[in-house]
């Protein structure tokens, strides 16, 4: 008997009888002889629950998680505190185990959550319409590109180099079959070079992509950049990838006439989970409603006049429109979007602002502290709100290793994605990193840089 089945030998006999075959093998008669595996799968034997637990606990212990060190890693996902309330609610089987709500009468819970989620994303981004989630951040950006492509049929995408490298790569991968090209706009002092952007735009451009804040933590001047994109007779779509944790302090995309705002939802009550699952959000101007990818919940009434919710505008979707669908997405990230919804409810209107301000202040403090160290300087002077970049006067890889040894993970080395910033480090702040921990970072990083410079001096 396999692990979670019930069929006893007696059951099996009775069931085969009812079917009218002699054996389970007979049920597989359609599988041609030569295609039958004919041997057991070459996998280890099944294990009792306690052994699976022990094995996976052992594997987990080989990772250095944010619980094991003082971590300043960010670069797209952040170690925010996830309240117990979120875990508790999403572990309810009524949210955890259902399929996509195809039967609305018995799915009002999930559908109403989608409706609430859509409202929250709309509020955060300042855009009127939101879908119920897409996979995650970078593919959300690619999905927005597809919408632009469908919308205006043009062939060129222009992407700021400040957009998350994973998003830029995903866009390139995903658009391989669209007959489009992707051009990059350089950064100047940490932000998108406005002149370069102006030069890059033409009537063949389907969409412009910016990030707010950008990958270097810098706040982009959307007030200046948006008109460059939009003040044209045939403007491309302006698509902005935003960090949903910053929209209490930063002006929202909606303020700048952005067409589509997308982003990575992980900061909103989702675990780090080594990168997933989380959710991507996707908000847009009204005009794009019928071109949106993914599920959308809408309000309606039941036969007795009660308020209720359904999946709506399904004629956009693959199960109805097939090759004419606006996206191929089916299973998305409902549970993760629920986490985000509960989390935002938990923060609430005031808490969301307070947290944004706390991050802003601590980030500023941390940048000041670090930039004040010998051999460490800010990579750019732009305002930052939750993350910032510094340049080290020592090999970043070696410095980072020294910090690890002191129980501190000082951040993400930028060099892999930005060879132009060779010894730079991207440092993220969350509400879980207290001033005392930031001070520890300063001490440890300062000492590590000094040690590396000294040993370089010695070897030199």
């Amino acid at each position, binding site marked *: 008997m*396999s692990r*979670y*089945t*019930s069929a006893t030998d007696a059951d099996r006999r009775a069931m085969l009888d009812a079917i009218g*075959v002699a054996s389970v093998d007979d*049920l597989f*008669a359609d599988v041609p002889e030569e*295609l039958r595996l004919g041997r057991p*799968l070459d*996998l*280890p034997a*099944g294990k009792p*629950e306690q052994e699976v*637990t022990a094995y996976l*606990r052992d594997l987990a212990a080989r990772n250095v998680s944010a619980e094991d060190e003082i971590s300043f890693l960010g670069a*797209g996902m952040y170690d925010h505190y996830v309240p117990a309330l979120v875990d508790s609610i999403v572990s*309810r089987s*009524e949210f955890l185990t*259902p399929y996509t709500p195809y*039967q609305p*009468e018995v*799915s009002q819970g*999930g559908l*109403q*959550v989608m*409706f609430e989620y859509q409202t929250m994303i709309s509020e955060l981004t300042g855009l*009127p319409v939101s879908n119920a989630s897409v*996979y*995650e951040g970078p593919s959300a950006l690619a999905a927005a590109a597809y919408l632009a492509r469908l919308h205006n049929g043009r062939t060129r995408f222009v992407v700021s180099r400040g957009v998350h490298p994973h998003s830029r790569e*995903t866009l390139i991968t*995903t658009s*391989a*079959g669209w007959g489009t090209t992707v051009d990059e706009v350089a950064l100047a002092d940490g932000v998108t070079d406005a002149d370069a952007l102006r030069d890059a735009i033409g009537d063949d451009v389907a969409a412009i992509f910016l990030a707010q804040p950008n990958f270097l933590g810098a706040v982009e001047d959307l007030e200046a950049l948006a008109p460059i994109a939009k003040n044209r007779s045939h403007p491309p779509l302006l698509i902005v990838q935003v960090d949903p944790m910053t*929209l209490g302090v930063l002006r929202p995309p909606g303020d700048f006439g952005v067409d589509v705002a997308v982003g990575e939802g992980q900061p909103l009550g989702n675990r780090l*989970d*080594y*990168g997933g699952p989380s959710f991507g959000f996707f908000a847009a101007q009204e005009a794009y*409603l019928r071109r949106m990818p993914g599920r959308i919940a809408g309000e*309606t009434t*039941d036969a007795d006049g009660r308020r*209720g*919710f*359904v999946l*709506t505008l399904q004629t956009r979707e*693959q199960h109805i429109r097939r*090759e004419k*669908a606006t996206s191929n*997405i089916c*299973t998305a990230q*409902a549970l*993760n979007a629920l986490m985000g919804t509960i989390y935002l*409810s938990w923060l*609430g*209107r*005031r808490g*969301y602002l*307070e947290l944004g301000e*706390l991050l802003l*202040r601590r980030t500023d403090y941390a940048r000041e502290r670090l930039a004040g160290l010998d051999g460490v300087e800010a990579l750019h002077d732009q*305002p930052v709100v939750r993350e910032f970049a510094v340049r080290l006067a020592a090999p970043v890889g070696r410095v980072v290793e020294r910090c690890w040894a002191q129980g501190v993970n000082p951040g993400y080395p930028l060099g892999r994605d930005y060879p132009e910033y060779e010894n730079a480090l991207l440092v993220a702040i969350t509400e879980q990193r207290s001033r005392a921990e930031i001070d520890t970072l300063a001490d440890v990083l300062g000492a590590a840089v000094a040690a590396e410079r000294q040993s370089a001096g010695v070897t030199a």
Partner: protein
Amino acid sequence: MTVATQTPQQREHATTIFERSVEGRRAFVAPALDVPQRPLDDLLPARFRRAHPPRLPEVSEPEINRHYNRLSKRNFDLDTGFYPLGSCTMKHNPKLHERVAALPGHARLHPMQDPRRAQGALRLMWELQGALSEISGLPHVSLQPSAGSHGELAGVLLTRAYHEARGEHRHQVLAPETSHGTNPATVTMGGYETVKVAVDGDGNVDLDDLRLKATEDVACLMLTNPSTLGLFEPNISEIARIVHAVGATLYYDGANLNAIMGRTRPGDMGFDIVHFNLHKSFTQPHGGGGPGSGPIAVSERIEPYLPKPQVVRDGDGFGLDFDRPQSIGRLRGFQGNFGVFVRSYAYILSLGGDGLTEASETAVLNANYLQARLTALAGEHLPVAYDRLCMHEFVLSGAPMKQALGLRTLDLAKRLLDFGYHPPTVYFPLVVEEALMIEPTETETRETLDAFAEAVAAILAEAAEDPQIARNAPYSTPVRRLDEAAAAKRPVIRQPL
């Protein structure tokens, strides 16, 4: 239900979290501002700052808790009852998986952690890749795609890269008319044109039609096997021959893998690319619409194009390989839905090879048994669409029921809700009139299958007396039938605030 006897849920007007908001209430308590209080303008000039904060709700923690708890009770779920939604593999979701996924070493592992400090995670991924490779009979695996249709997109992009590396520019992708909607939608997103292949009277791919359409302009054939009719394609070897003869790839939509684990393997059938739905065959909970995960396995010739990074063995340890010059690149951020990998790998560890095989065998046994029971009890009104042994699921037609009793498949589905069952998938696949697609999965008991068949029979009997009962069903659900047309006509998709 009379007004006097309606349920508390029906009595309650649906109220959103925004409608529960009262100014000044809160749940969150912020950590103390422990850094110097510089003027905000010095940190972030006013022109960057938001003037009107998002109107998030203001609600106390007990009320948030109760709100979502109550909402949860307006959902039907797998832990409550039978959920035979065809094509969705609603098998039991073991609680163990949630426990191991929640270990801080997994849940709080940062995706940008240096691979040297994420060896447990990389090893888990590497081992999972190995297991999926063995199950599919294909040598290389990428765990990156986020769900089935994302895996399909990966497959189409791999196909494109494969052809382009050979200097070929093809334009068509074939898919049978029974294919799932994500197949043609993906084809379009991948920049190809979908060409439909007919299905014959037995539910199999029409080989003549296939031969006709399999030209040198065809990049790929996407196939689900067993098909969405729940039928194993007996001519799969011939199909593979035809497709490969024109130089196209053969893509396996793995949504129905639950039928065949350990019995036969897509790789052995000749498929080049396979996607897995870890949220179906490997029991990641569906979460009301995700998260999922859609790893792909590929043959040697496709391997060079796999997305990057790839998890690789690196001496005694494991690493992430970014140096893959022919790779199609990234499909998403980071390393894929790792939390799902933990759950699905826990499942594979728990069952082992034998267990997976027995799971598939029992899934097929349960489906055939339920097919037999329903045929016996309700076959007159709900005949099997293709009168054969099925695999893990089967499709009935409600056309005779509609004819004889005036009941549509939808009515039957809605009436099942009052009996405490989630209805099967309805009106898919499109080739069957008034279709009901039923997938019981291996984790259901014989008693449950019997009771479900009897409930269907009872509803038919009730309808023979009074079809209005089912036509107006459901009665006992939190809301009754909803006006979907009105919702689409004048969409209200957010709370006006």
